[in-house]
């Protein structure tokens, strides 16, 4: 290791900023998973019968499923009976009727997380739905959204208030049979977000959800369903944090997006779950299934993600491009350091004519971390004139980390065109020396170099979050110069 690298390693040792535990009274289930637990969960949420049946069916199937081990990851097997499947802040009333009724401790938590529930939210013009452990706590900006006809609420509310929409679309993109974690989520999902944008409506503001895992030994299984009806547009952002705990915590979310004719959904994620300490102890296991169905003609879905947290990330936001001329995009920055492991990428499934997709993936590895891009681009027999462009770039900081790229291409249509570019580079000693010679300290230098590397992805984020993402990278890289 060169001297510069050693110093860089020193710098990578950073503290997790959001690692505080909130001291509030909670209702929590005993750890364990069985049909009774699922029934109680469904009862607490006052779900209609169809929902309970849907959950139980998923659960029974899940019992027969095997946990996948093909990802480029190593972790100890999870005992699913050690996890509690429901944790909610205690409330006097059934549900808070307004923000004023939300536990002030909880609001303070959000403030410390930098979540602008009151003024900031207004300034930024962001409607925030905050999910704390298992339940959705508050949704702001319901009124202006309602005026535009946009439904933006917790999925629990949607199950009760819009059962037809939920029943029509839930599980159509990610069926419970899809994979082990999707099966588990379908059985026990606790809360999440629901968005419906009606025909021809351009959602008047950015929608946003913040997730936070607080209680110990709790799994978080949120479920998000977004439907963009014909000719509509919506941009949605989710942010995630969790306190520092020595035990690993499980996060197994499912996100389903549905875009009808000429509709567009922009889905951005800034994921900063607790990554574990510098020795690899603790941290979130983030096993997520995200998928979009572009069923309409000329529909479009963009996934943009900035992933800096979690001990393990297992995540492949994908697009099924069924509608003629539909467009799928995936822009990703995944940063790992210390002992973090990330296996992430996308699947672009081209089924319709003239469908196009773009994949830009930027992987940054520091410390002893491992960062994998795994992508599939598939062209079905009817995907005449379909096209994909893929660019996968890896940046290494130091010489103890790893980056791997696994791009898979399957084509059943001769007219389909794929372009693929891949690079691996290092934050070089020469670059560091140049910056330092100009008076810039090492931490600043690394963060500047990394931000430059990510530029093509950051420019896809909504403006106010692009700045945040840049800052987040800076924090995540503290102690990472190596």
């Amino acid at each position: 290791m060169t001297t510069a690298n050693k110093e860089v390693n020193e710098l990578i040792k950073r503290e997790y900023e959001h690692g505080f535990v909130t001291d509030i009274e909670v209702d929590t289930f005993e750890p364990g998973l069985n049909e009774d637990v699922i029934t109680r969960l469904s009862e607490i949420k006052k779900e209609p019968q169809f929902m309970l049946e849907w959950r139980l069916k998923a659960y029974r199937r899940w019992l027969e499923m095997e946990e996948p081990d093909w990802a480029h990851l190593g972790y100890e097997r999870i005992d699913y009976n050690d996890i509690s499947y429901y944790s909610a802040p205690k409330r006097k009333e059934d549900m808070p009727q307004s923000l004023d009724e939300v536990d002030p401790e909880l609001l303070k938590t959000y403030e410390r997380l930098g979540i602008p529930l009151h003024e900031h939210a207004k300034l930024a013009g962001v409607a925030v739905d905050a999910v704390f452990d298992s339940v959705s706590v508050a949704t702001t900006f319901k009124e202006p959204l309602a005026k535009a006809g946009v439904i933006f609420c917790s999925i629990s509310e949607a199950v009760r208030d819009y059962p037809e929409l939920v029943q029509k679309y839930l599980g159509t993109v990610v069926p419970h049979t899809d994979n082990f974690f999707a099966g588990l989520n379908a059985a026990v999902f606790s809360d999440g977000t629901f968005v419906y944008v009606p025909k021809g409506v351009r959602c008047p503001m950015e929608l946003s959800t913040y997730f936070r895992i607080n209680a110990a030994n709790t799994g978080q299984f949120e479920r998000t369903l977004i439907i963009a009806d014909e000719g509509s547009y919506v941009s949605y952002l989710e942010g995630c944090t969790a306190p520092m705990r020595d035990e690993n915590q499980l996060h197994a979310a499912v996100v389903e997006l549905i875009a009808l004719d000429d509709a567009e959904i922009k889905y951005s994620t800034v994921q900063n779950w607790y990554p574990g300490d510098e020795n690899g102890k603790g941290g979130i296991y983030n096993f997520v299934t995200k998928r979009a169905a572009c069923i309409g003609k000329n529909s479009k879905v963009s996934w943009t993600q900035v992933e800096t947290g979690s001990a393990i990330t297992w995540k492949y936001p994908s697009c099924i491009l069924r509608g003629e001329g539909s467009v799928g995009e995936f822009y990703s920055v995944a940063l790992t350091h210390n002992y973090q492991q990330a296996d992430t990428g996308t699947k672009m499934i081209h089924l319709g004519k003239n469908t196009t997709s773009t994949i830009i993936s930027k992987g940054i590895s520091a410390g002893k971390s491992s960062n994998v891009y795994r992508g599939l681009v598939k062209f079905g027999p009817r995907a005449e004139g379909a096209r994909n462009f893929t660019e996968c770039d890896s940046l290494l900081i130091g010489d103890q980390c790893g980056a791997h790229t696994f791009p898979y291409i399957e084509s059943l249509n001769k007219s389909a065109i794929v372009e693929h570019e891949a690079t691996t580079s290092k934050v070089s000693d020469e670059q560091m020396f140049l910056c330092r010679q100009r008076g810039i300290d090492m931490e600043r230098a690394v963060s500047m170099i990394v931000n430059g590397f990510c530029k093509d992805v950051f420019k896809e984020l909504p403006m106010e979050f692009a700045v945040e993402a840049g800052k987040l990278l800076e924090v995540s890289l503290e102690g990472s110069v190596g």
Partner: protein
Amino acid sequence: MLSIKNLHASVEGKEILKGINLEIKAGEVHAIMGPNGSGKSTLAQVLAGNDAFEVTSGSVTMHGEDLLEKATEERARDGVFLAFQYPVEIPGVSNLQFMRTSVNAMRHHRGESEMNAAEFMKMAREISKQVDLDPAFLKRGVNEGFSGGEKKRNEIMQALMLQPKLAILDETDSGLDIDALKVVSDGVNALRAEDRAILMVTHYQRLLDHIVPDFVHVLAEGKIVKSGGRELALELEERGYAWLGIKDDETAASSALSNSAN
């Protein structure tokens, strides 16, 4: 201002600098000449603090302070500037952002407030004109896709922005056509000041037609073998390094239009 005493330095266990002695006063311009591989860049890099090079013995002081014990960025903030022979690219980081971060790091060190974007932009535009660079290049990635000449002008531009105490210019003349050489030389001459020292490394004497040095030193195999005034460079051009018993793969006289300097 700068005092180098018996400086020895090696890279990968191989000794490159074998006892350099040099005194530079404020206001002076010194030229270091010598054939390829004689250790000119090594001297420049060691002064700037590149830790790929190991100082094995000797001392360097600047304004009476031990320079060698300071980290690269501290030296820079104390006014050491190195114009690189081979400036490296930093993809995706705009030149503007890079320079502004640099200028503000220096200002912060001096206890001054940061320059805002508008102020900075104004200064950057003016100086870019001074070195004949289209302001549009400020938006491009640092050295990304710059031509050889643009890279050199960019280095001089940064020196002009940072106003260092000691400017070390490593082969800032190489790869330049006559017009660009004029622009770069004008830039360097603009840097000349009472309270500033300039150490110019060059393989050829042609730069010295434009920037007249106070002293010329000839470096060979890690040692300064001869020092003199302006006339030493001219004599070298006429008679070649062989005159001093130095081996060189090219003769100095063929240098006037060469752009393959190392």
